[in-house]
């Protein structure tokens, strides 16, 4: 009997041990509660601009408004003249290129391809007045547009095709008396509309964020923390935190999750250990473009078609243009699963002076550096925007077309629909060689996804990556992901070993059975 008891104990005891260790007391995430409390404290401005005497008047010259701002904020003009929002160019170091001066001012992109010769329309989003050609004065502080960022009435408008000037006839008296810290509406005025329309470019930055629920964006959701952009993109002397790697190149002054949430934000240390190799965004932004669609593909090569001699547009069921005579074919998507890449915070860009490699499957408009063996790299979610752009097959350079003008007949593609003339005008403006021949090259642009963070309950679960089938990580190379990475040789040899053991045992058992039977008979 004693032995039976021992046996039961030997089986039951380990079970008890395991059950006891399994009991996990659930903990409250106090860090998160503290952050919520912090964010709920409202910002109380130290000044009421409606009481300033210099602002008790009407304005019709925008430069005069800026001069009035600077009459009190005497040093801010100098700050702005060196800020990226005004210079659209930044000194950066790029591996393989050295020190460069790059920004929206001179970089290519995968949407309207670049601002050259189109400044009047593109630069509507410049924090300045009057940048309509290469002669713009970047040293004159009165060329700064304070209101686009600081108007708190939500009414300030910049003129379409107005090179950054405001629409005339606005109630500037009310606007200047209601300036303050930038709100979502201010940043969104430009950043929600990149690429020529709402959510076209980023996919995670769009008008819906002004009214969205916390399911769409846990930080900015009106029923969530209802945070402003500048709560994370903090600024010191108009130098802001935050990098968009369509124009940035170095790993500095980034706005990070860690600046609030720390590098160990989870209660579960198993999740915390992921932080070393997986960016927060990877699990916490399971999809982007959660409300309105974002543009995933832009094929310029089909632009210029006419229907019955007239320009035309085709729309999908949601009202997104899928073809425009002036722009070509588009593909749109909502609730998009990001693609995943290793990224160490540094990037390169395809410059107008770079040579197109026609043997490559596609040209990278920007390149995100990083790989599994790089200790500074983490896996991030990326919106990959694919497209086709014109290039010069003789000089092997990307071409810039003149897209826009105030009136037809001056070679603007969007008005005259003449590729040949538009390319000649565009390249003439740039003063770069052009053979007169053009073709189209496949392009990809990589836009890291950082916004539209979901509530924790909707974050990716283990099995979204740690699975053999349809893992989110299936295209990410160079790392061993338990449950996903398969070494067929090891598995095959292992299974073979087990099968051989069974076969050996089976053969031995059969021989033993029959020989013993035979022995008994004899």
């Amino acid at each position, binding site marked *: 009997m004693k032995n039976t008891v021992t046996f039961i104990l030997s089986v039951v005891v*380990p079970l008890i041990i395991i059950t006891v260790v399994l009991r996990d007391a659930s903990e409250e995430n106090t860090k998160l509660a503290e952050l919520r409390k912090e964010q709920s404290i409202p910002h109380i401005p130290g000044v009421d601009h409606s009481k300033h005497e210099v602002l008790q008047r009407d304005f019709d010259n925008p430069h005069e408004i800026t001069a009035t701002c600077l009459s009190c904020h005497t040093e801010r003009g100098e700050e702005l003249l060196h800020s990226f929002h005004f210079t659209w160019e930044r000194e950066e170091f790029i591996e393989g290129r050295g020190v460069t001066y790059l920004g929206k001012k001179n970089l290519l992109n995968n949407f309207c391809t670049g601002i050259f010769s189109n400044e009047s329309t593109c630069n509507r989003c410049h924090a300045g007045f009057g940048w309509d050609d290469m002669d713009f004065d970047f040293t004159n502080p009165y060329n700064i547009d304070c209101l686009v960022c600081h108007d708190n009435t939500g009414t300030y408008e910049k003129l379409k095709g107005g090179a950054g000037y405001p629409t005339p006839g606005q109630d500037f008296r009310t606007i200047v008396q209601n300036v303050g810290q930038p709100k979502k509406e201010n940043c969104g005025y430009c950043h929600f509309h990149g690429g020529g329309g709402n959510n076209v470019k980023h996919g995670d930055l769009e008008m819906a964020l002004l009214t969205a629920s916390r399911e769409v964006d846990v930080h900015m959701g009106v029923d969530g923390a209802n945070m402003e952009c500048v709560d994370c993109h903090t600024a010191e002397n108009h130098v802001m935190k935050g990098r968009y790697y369509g124009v940035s190149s170095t790993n500095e002054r980034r706005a990070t999750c860690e600046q609030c949430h720390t590098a160990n934000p989870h209660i579960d240390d198993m999740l915390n250990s992921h932080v*070393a190799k997986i960016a927060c965004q990877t699990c916490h932004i399971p999809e982007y473009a959660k409300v309105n669609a974002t543009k995933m593909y832009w094929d310029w090569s089909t632009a210029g078609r006419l229907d019955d001699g007239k320009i035309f547009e085709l729309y999908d069921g949601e009202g997104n243009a899928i073809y425009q005579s002036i722009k070509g074919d588009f593909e749109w998507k909502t609730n998009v699963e990001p693609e995943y890449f290793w990224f160490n915070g540094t990037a390169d860009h395809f410059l107008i002076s770079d040579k197109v490699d026609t043997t490559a499957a596609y040209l990278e408009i920007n390149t995100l550096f990083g790989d599994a063996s790089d200790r500074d790299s983490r896996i991030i979610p990326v919106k990959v925007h694919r497209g086709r752009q014109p290039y010069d097959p003789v000089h092997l350079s990307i071409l810039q077309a003149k897209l826009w003008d105030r009136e037809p007949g001056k070679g603007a593609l969007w008005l005259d629909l003449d590729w040949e003339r538009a390319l000649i005008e565009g390249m003439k403006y740039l003063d770069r060689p052009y053979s007169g021949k053009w073709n189209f090259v496949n392009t990809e642009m990589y836009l890291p996804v950082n916004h539209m963070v979901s509530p924790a309950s909707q974050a990716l679960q283990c099995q979204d990556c740690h699975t053999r089938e349809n893992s989110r990580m299936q295209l990410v190379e160079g790392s*061993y992901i338990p449950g996903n990475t398969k*070494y067929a040789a090891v*598995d095959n*040899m292992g299974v073979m070993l087990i099968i051989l053991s069974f076969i050996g045992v089976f053969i031995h058992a059969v021989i033993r059975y029959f020989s013993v039977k035979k022995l008994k008979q004899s």
Partner: protein
Amino acid sequence: MAKTEKVYIYKSYERFWHWTQAFLIFFLALTGFEVHGSFSFFGFESAVDLHNKAAWAFIILTIFTIFWHFTTGEWRQYLPTTENLRAQAEYYIFGIFRNAPHPTRKTTLSKLNPLQRLVYLSLKILVFPVMIASGLAYMFYRYPSEGEIVELGISSLERVALAHTIGAYILIAFVVVHLYLITTGHTVTSNLKAMITGWEELEKDEKEDDKKKNDEPEKEIS
């Protein structure tokens, strides 16, 4: 049929250790191969959690058992010997089919035959250490500590995971053969009964002269 007698072979701790270890190895294999991606049973998250907890139970059991081996002197059971090694191998290949007697006499003092000695010793000094070391590396190659991620300087999980996986396959193959070989005692179930009750039915040695000793089960070796 040869005469048999009942001999006390496995002490209670030994049996506790054996069955706990058997259960843990089964459970670790079940959860481990789910983590490996071979099938889905508990769900990945639970499988990892259960595997890690069972691993700690295994490590604790191993520490106690090492202590037991040294304090009782039982470690000597695993000293390899060439004596009868060939005879034992021949027994499994030929003798067993002719109902020949077991070439090695099982006693409390020497409960393992030369082949068992070799196999169990290599489990103890090779397979288990590799599994425990690679398992710990798997758990700790990156771990959070005071707001920082501390690394063990292992650049990739790959080698660690491969060693752990290969070890797991070897252990399963061992279990398959082991489960069969326990049927090769005096009767098909006598080995199993021995590991449950401690008492094993053994073929009686005709030239028996140490019967007395076998009847004193609790006598320690050292």
